[in-house]
């Protein structure tokens, strides 16, 4: 008489060890060599266009990709985008068969392999034409900062200071190029770690609290049918959900007149929150856009926003 199946099952248990050992061997054999990343860079160099997104999947592979690709390919706009909607195409550089969720419904135009690295060219199913990017305008000097308290308006100075940075818990670094107000308050373009620790290129403008307001006036803004943007706070500033809301009030000024565009309130826990408002009456015009940032209290209000017209 044969043995019961349970005996065979128990006798087969050591096979788990052999399977484990085999799996370990296979996993080691699948490690992506450095050379594949370099080969992928050369492939991407030959395909990329100026307004493409170049990104890595999975996220944890990003340092390897950035090291191999360098700053020329991985610009800050590509490394820390507000979202993917502004890019007509994306070059997704991936390993281990992983893909980015936000590109899931994009059409695959082309796929190439560089060793174990896969490069996919994807097309945005809903392409947009960005007319003005407020972050870029600010960087190019087309943004001024004013500190407003009641009737008193204090212009702030664009200049260079020491980089402000720290260690864990500091928040976003404040770059050398920034606009500083004599009695406190500043604005600068930085990379914000959002609530989910994703990098976001944005205008860092921590509000002053109380009745004080920081006002940024952007000039030469080409308006379209829509204003699209995001705002958020440094992750540790909003994750405890114990801070005061921050309000971003957008309006036109100058030749376009004082026309409200939108008022957006960011509450702790909202994370990197998007907003979009139709601006059909402004479409085709070029003028000033004013951003007013306020909060009842300045405590931990490490606030950042970005927006574009499209």
């Amino acid at each position, binding site marked *: 008489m044969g*043995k019961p199946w349970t*005996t*065979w099952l*128990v*006798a087969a*248990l*050591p*096979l*788990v*060890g*052999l*399977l*484990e*050992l085999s*799996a*370990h061997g296979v*996993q*080691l054999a*699948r*490690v992506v060599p450095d050379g594949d990343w370099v080969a992928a860079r050369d492939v991407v160099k030959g395909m990329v266009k100026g307004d493409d997104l170049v990104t890595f999947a*999975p996220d*944890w*592979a990003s*340092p*390897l990709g*950035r*090291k191999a*690709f*360098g*700053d020329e390919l*991985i610009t*800050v706009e590509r*490394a*820390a985008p507000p979202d993917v909607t502004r890019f007509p195409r994306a070059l997704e550089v991936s*390993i*281990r068969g*992983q893909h980015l969720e936000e590109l899931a419904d994009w059409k695959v135009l082309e796929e190439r392999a560089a060793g174990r690295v896969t490069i996919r060219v994807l097309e945005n199913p809903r392409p947009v034409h960005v007319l003005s990017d407020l972050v870029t305008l600010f960087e190019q000097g087309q943004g001024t900062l004013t500190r407003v308290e009641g009737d008193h308006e204090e212009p702030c100075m664009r200049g260079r200071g*020491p*980089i*402000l*940075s*720290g*260690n*864990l818990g*500091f*928040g*976003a*670094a*404040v*770059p050398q190029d920034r606009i500083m107000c004599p009695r406190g308050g500043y604005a600068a373009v*930085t*990379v*914000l*770690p959002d609530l989910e*620790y994703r*990098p976001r290129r944005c205008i860092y403008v921590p509000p002053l609290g109380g009745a004080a307001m920081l006002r940024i006036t952007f000039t030469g803004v080409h308006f379209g049918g829509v204003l699209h943007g995001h705002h958020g706070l*440094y*992750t*540790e500033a909003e*994750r405890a959900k114990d801070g005061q809301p921050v309000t971003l009030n957008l309006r036109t000024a100058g030749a376009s007149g004082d026309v409200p565009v939108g008022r957006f309130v960011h509450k702790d826990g909202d994370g990197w929150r998007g907003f979009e408002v139709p601006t059909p009456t402004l479409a085709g015009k070029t003028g000033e856009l004013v951003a007013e940032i306020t909060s009842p209290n300045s405590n931990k209000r490490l606030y950042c926003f970005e927006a574009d017209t499209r």
Partner: protein
Amino acid sequence: MSSMVAPSRRDHALGGALGAVYVAWLLGTARSLGFPRDEGFYFRAAADYARWFRLLAHAPAKAFEPNAIDSMWSYNHEHPALMKSLFGLSWVAFHENLKVFADPSTAFRFPAMVMAGLSVYVTFLFGAQVYSRRAGVVAAVSLALMPHVFFHAHLACFDVPIMAMWTVCLYVYWRAVTPVPGRRTFARIAWPLAAGVVYGLTLETKHNAWVLPAVVLPHAFFVHRRPVLRGVAVGRLPVPLTLISMAVLGPLVFVACWPWMWKDTVPRVQEYLNFHLNHEYYNIEFLHRNYFGPPSPKLYAPLMIAATVPAVTLALFLAGVVSRGLHHVARLRSATPPPDAEGEGGGDRVRSDGEADLLFALAIGAALGPFFLPKTPIFGGTKHWLTAYPFLALFAGWGFERASRALASVVGEVVAKRGLKLPGKITAPALALGLAGTAAVLPPLVVTVHSHPFGLGAYTPLVGGTAGGADLGLYRSFWGYLTQTTAPYLAKLPAHSSVFIHDTAWDAWGRMQDEGRVRSDLRGVGTTGEGDSALVQYELHMLEVEYQEWITSGTRAPAYVLTHDGVPYVSAYEKRR
């Protein structure tokens, strides 16, 4: 009630040899492992405590003065003193005086390594006495070959020591409550007294020991259920001597071994308890989410165990649990109890009615139970429940016993049916044992060796290895200990460069330089913008530091990435401005 056969000299020799080999292996690999944050703090505390022991040796009266005690025992008084005292004494004895260890850190670490060896030894004894000698061997080896245990076993910290003391305490308790036929009166008193002393030392090792009553109280009730129930029926509650000893001697030993507790004992004990009952929540990643406060995810412990304990050990553990469970169900259903060895030649050396199995199950449950509560912080990864692993390994040992027997039976049948002739003097059972033993030990050995020195965030092949763990969003590292592993990069920096050392503690950095593990001319700095070069140690919540580096160094491209199996652990940025 169960009874047992005391371990033989051969058992002690075999268990001791396993433990000694483990300690030797740990010593051999110690220099390749950098210093985590906490080790830096404990090195400092150990040196402080060692000063007090020197004072005690040279001027005992002065050593007992409150000012002397407070000045030398205040630092790091949120953790008890036993291990830090041993770290300090080992440093004085084996580095300063005897020069056995060239590195002070190895001398500091040595007592914890010995504790690791002790846990291997006691696990073997437990397994050999309860199940069989080979179950004991496999249990001990399986414990030693868990990558996370191997990592922590190197450190001058408390996690492996408490694993050892938890196991020793339960072993002594079990010896105290389990009669040995013919045991003398002295032993009947000595084991319960030893249980009390050892419980005190366990309390003195780490606060996990507070949970031990959740193991011994229900177990003692089960063991003494008949006298207890008889006593309750006549209006009295007989309390076993072992429990009295643990309840009385435990706290006394706890206070006696910790000079900081000698003054203002009640408020200081209260402060100690409050620190741990209201412990800060540190950040830790789990399934791509950064947890920094309650509620903790209930899936955390089960998934982390599945992802970090070798699969063959887990499979044998499950087989062992099922086998013991079925055995006890059959025993309870049957008028004639089945033999504990479940037939087939040897097995239990304890005449058990389930008491040892219950003890093991309670030990696992009590060690893991808090991690299913929403308020328990999970920042320590697996290290906070290492106390469950010796008992997990013991069930795995029994699972191995069953598997090797079943394999022997199958191999024997195949050989007989097919008329096969095995080479030399090899028998079917020996062949089966060899095959099963190799399959049970070799994969964990290979995986553990491969994990070093990345063992804190090592993941097993079951979840895809290191890359699989990263895909799942499990933490890669914490404590900033991999700075030493970047030494080949640091070695190429210009002379007297400044380096942002990120999460590495200053004490740890200083010791790495003192011991020549990283270049001593490099100047460590504490903020991202200060360094010519900057290290970024990858944890989800540490990514903010990397984004700061993009601004301060002016580049998104790291100059160097330390990887393990193709997964980044540390990046280094260099200023391009």
